[in-house]
């Protein structure tokens, strides 16, 4: 790409030089001049010039005010804004007056008040009084367009940001404008709830209090809360967020907009999922299992005594099951305690990492710039790392070619054969195109990635290491699986045998507590110490339960799927002390020096694995570390076992973990409507064979278990495969029989 040509534009007597083609609003901002806008939002596509707020006078154009958002900088352009042009001033004043003509006087009761662009712009450019003495147009209000979002049609100024988001960013086309003229209103088809992974973004886009989240209703005056910059910890993307906290409680989560990671969007799980902090079954005090009485609360002194006793009794036969939602510091502290303090080196890590993809590092925004993208894997991208799905859609809109290889992809493969498909890409037509392209991205969305090693082997073969525009991602299952694994490895270089018999199993985090493999291991352990947030996960099988904290309540770092280390900040006051605090105290009892402060722990850890970066270096908008030069061609780990193909009459069961699942989402009332419906996805061929129509209930059986589900038809699904969400698949075996 050649360097952009610079043009000189004069704005209100100020001259400024910008690259040719820059929008006029940005050009004015570069010159320090504000051009007010409502409908202009570059992330939503081309400017539409609908609201007429950005009217300016441009010399040489027809003698009427022009919408600055639709214009781009040309050399020699002379632009006058409301500051210096009466025509522009009257135009902007008129626009605000017209908006306010039908806008209800809701400011005292409207949640947007105080952070409302309409209020601010009216103050700066609008009329001070109203001349409207007639009845305003009214609507029934507020209307819940979903349990999480409420719509107030009277306040809507019809800037169309929400409909444009629904149409051309999340591409769900659910939010539309109906009727015409002054009766236009925003609605969903047949008033169905607005469902999808990204619906909450319209509450941030809306410039007035028309679309508001229902969770913090009436509790968010901007002068009453503080915004804490942090990072979301519910999926491996690690979107940057601003957590609005009031009096120590989280009220709302907004996007902080990291242009390389999330571009200002959040998925609904990250945005609305915070109320799991205040679930009813949250554990606030340590619990000890007492025979015949279940779990009883004990004090922290007693708990630490118990924990020390358990650790000593285990005599080195300790194993740790980690969740992947711990901060890197916490994982390191726990690892140091167990490995250096107790000499036990066995851990059940949430996933395999270290596949060697660091040589092919690119930021997520590289997806947008790519021309060819190959997505391999069994799981839909939107369920694993939702924001990546938005990047893919953006790339497709920009003209990129996206090839999906999977059971429901453009190239259909059987479940569990992703590694094979990955190797096949080394040759063939698609492979040769990947080899020659300067901007190609590979994405592995599913299990069996081997920490990304298969992708790394492929990428190395395709020559990606020399091309900065080419990269590869594998989408992990947990938010900080990589950070946790690297922290565990960094805690000690020693090795040790697997403890037999297992004396103590330390279960860290809710995901581990919910993992059936961990439960199975816990059966074999003599004792179990669990660190978890919710009662229902620990009850019944743990001997000592210590209350855990959430990513919103901790200072620390997470490593996201790009390999970017990002800082979390404590936004809410947890009901229990931070893990680092009591791990440090426990460590002291074993003569181990461990700091309770995240920054010091990070400093120690960073020396070993992050090249010595400090918290200050990470800053608020973390940079992606440089690529690690490729030393030797990476070897792929062994393939995961391929599930047996279905015999005649049966179908291969493809499970997937839906986005809206997990301990956190289960405890958020506003997200329950997003949980997957009890459905089974069938291919068109199988549906015809079974004589099943869309929506019909079917019986799904396998070896003793059976469950009733509703059939849906996915035309892209490979024949012989049925897909069911984890929540509903439960105990079904890998092959199932389906009948009406």
């Amino acid at each position, binding site marked *: 790409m050649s360097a952009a040509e610079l043009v000189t534009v004069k704005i209100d007597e100020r001259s400024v030089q910008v690259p040719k083609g820059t929008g006029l609003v940005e050009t004015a901002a570069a010159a320090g001049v504000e051009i007010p806008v409502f409908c202009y939002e570059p992330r939503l596509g081309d400017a539409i010039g609908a609201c007429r707020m950005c009217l300016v006078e441009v010399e040489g154009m027809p003698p009427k005010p022009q919408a600055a958002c639709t214009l781009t900088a040309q050399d020699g352009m002379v632009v006058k804004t409301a500051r210096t042009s009466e025509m522009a001033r009257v135009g902007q004043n008129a626009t605000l007056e017209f908006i306010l003509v039908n806008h209800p006087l809701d*400011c*005292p*009761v409207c949640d947007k*008040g*105080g952070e409302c662009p309409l209020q601010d712009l009216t103050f700066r450019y609008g009329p001070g009084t109203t001349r409207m003495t007639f009845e305003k147009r009214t609507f029934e209000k*507020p209307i819940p367009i979903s349990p999480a979002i409420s719509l107030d049609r009277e306040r809507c100024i019809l800037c169309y940001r929400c409909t444009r988001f629904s149409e051309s960013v999340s591409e769900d086309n659910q939010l539309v404008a109906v009727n015409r003229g002054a009766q236009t209103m925003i609605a969903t088809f047949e008033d169905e709830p607005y469902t999808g992974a990204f619906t909450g973004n319209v509450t941030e886009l809306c410039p007035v209090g028309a679309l508001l989240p229902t969770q913090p*209703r*009436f*509790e968010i*005056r901007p*002068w*009453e809360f503080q915004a804490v910059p942090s990072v979301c910890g519910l999926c491996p993307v690690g979107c940057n967020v601003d957590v609005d906290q009031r009096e120590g409680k989280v009220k709302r989560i907004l996007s902080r907009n990291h242009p390389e990671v999330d571009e200002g969007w959040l998925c609904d799980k990250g945005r609305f999922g915070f109320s799991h902090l205040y679930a009813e079954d949250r554990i606030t005090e340590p619990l000890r299992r007492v025979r015949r009485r279940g779990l009883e609360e004990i004090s922290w002194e007693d708990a630490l005594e118990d924990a020390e006793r358990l650790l000593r009794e285990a005599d080195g036969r300790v194993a740790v099951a980690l969740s992947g939602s711990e901060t890197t510091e916490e994982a390191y502290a726990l690892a140091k305690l167990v490995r250096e303090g107790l000499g036990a080196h066995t851990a059940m890590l949430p996933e395999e990492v270290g596949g060697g993809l660091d040589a092919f590092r690119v930021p997520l925004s590289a997806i947008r710039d790519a021309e060819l993208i190959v997505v391999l894997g069994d799981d839909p991208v939107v369920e694993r790392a939702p924001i990546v799905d938005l990047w893919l859609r953006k790339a497709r809109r920009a003209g990129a070619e996206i090839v999906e290889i999977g059971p429901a992809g453009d190239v259909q493969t059987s479940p569990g054969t992703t590694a094979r498909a990955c190797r096949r890409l080394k040759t063939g037509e698609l492979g040769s195109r990947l080899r020659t392209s300067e901007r190609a991205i590979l994405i592995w969305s599913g299990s069996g990635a081997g920490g990304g090693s298969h992708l790394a082997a492929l990428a190395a073969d395709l020559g990606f290491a020399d091309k900065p525009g080419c990269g590869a991602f594998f989408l992990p299952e947990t938010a900080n699986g990589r950070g946790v694994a690297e922290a565990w490895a960094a805690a000690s270089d020693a090795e040790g045998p697997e403890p037999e018999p297992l004396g103590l199993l330390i279960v860290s985090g809710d995901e581990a507590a919910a993992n059936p493999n961990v439960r199975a291991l816990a059966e074999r352990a003599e004792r179990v110490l669990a660190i978890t947030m919710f009662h229902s996960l620990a009850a019944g099988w743990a001997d000592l339960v210590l209350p855990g904290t959430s990513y919103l309540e901790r200072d620390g770092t997470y490593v996201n799927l790009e390999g970017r280390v990002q800082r979390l900040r404590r936004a809410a006051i947890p009901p229990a002390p931070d893990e680092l605090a009591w791990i440090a105290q426990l460590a002291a009892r074993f003569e181990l020096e461990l700091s309770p402060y995240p920054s010091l722990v990070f400093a120690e850890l960073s020396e070993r694995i992050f090249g010595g970066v400090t918290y200050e270096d990470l800053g608020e908008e973390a940079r992606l570390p440089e690529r690690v030069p490729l030393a030797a061609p990476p070897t792929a780990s062994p393939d995961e076992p391929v599930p047996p193909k279905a015999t005649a009459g049966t179908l291969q069961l493809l499970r997937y973990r839906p986005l809206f699942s997990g301990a956190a989402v289960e405890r958020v009332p506003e997200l329950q409507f997003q949980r997957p419906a009890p459905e089974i996805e069938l291919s068109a061929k199988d549906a015809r064979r079974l004589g099943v129509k869309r929506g019909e209930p079917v019986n799904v059986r396998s070896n003793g278990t059976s469950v009733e589900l509703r059939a849906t038809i996915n035309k892209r699904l490979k024949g012989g495969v049925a897909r069911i969400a984890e929540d509903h698949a439960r105990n079904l075996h890998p092959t199932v029989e389906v009948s009406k």
Partner: protein
Amino acid sequence: MSPQPVDTLKGFGVTFKQIFKKPLTMQYPEYKRPVYPRFRGRHRLWRHQNGLEKCVGCSLCAAACPADCIRVVAAENTPENRVSPGERYARIYEINMSRCIFCGYCELACPFDAITLGNDYELAEYDRDDQIYTKDMLLAEPIKKVPVADAELYDTPIPYYRTYS
């Protein structure tokens, strides 16, 4: 070196004369000097004539307060529990009187004439915690009242919201 001795003697003379003048001491609390009608004293929250509270919990008073002494937590009116006209009401409304500087900005900021500063100034308490006035205390009539000067004597229009509850 003293300045003009005559001026010094004049000063002493004034002081000497004061010894024989009657002191103008007002014996509080037996005599409480009437305050002017617009005296800014203890806050009051008002209701409409139909019993609904005027306060909608918009928190503008908290925003305007220079001493940051007002705490407002709003909640939604439900059909079963309607406290104020409109969508929301103040579920928690507290003013920390020990921080309040009685400037009257909250009264100016309120769009609904829900909070005004009344005339009572006898607010001493033994405990700092008792200085936090809750919504019930602010809605109720003040317990201790002070005399107020007759408004007719002064060119002071009394706003209607100060004269009825």
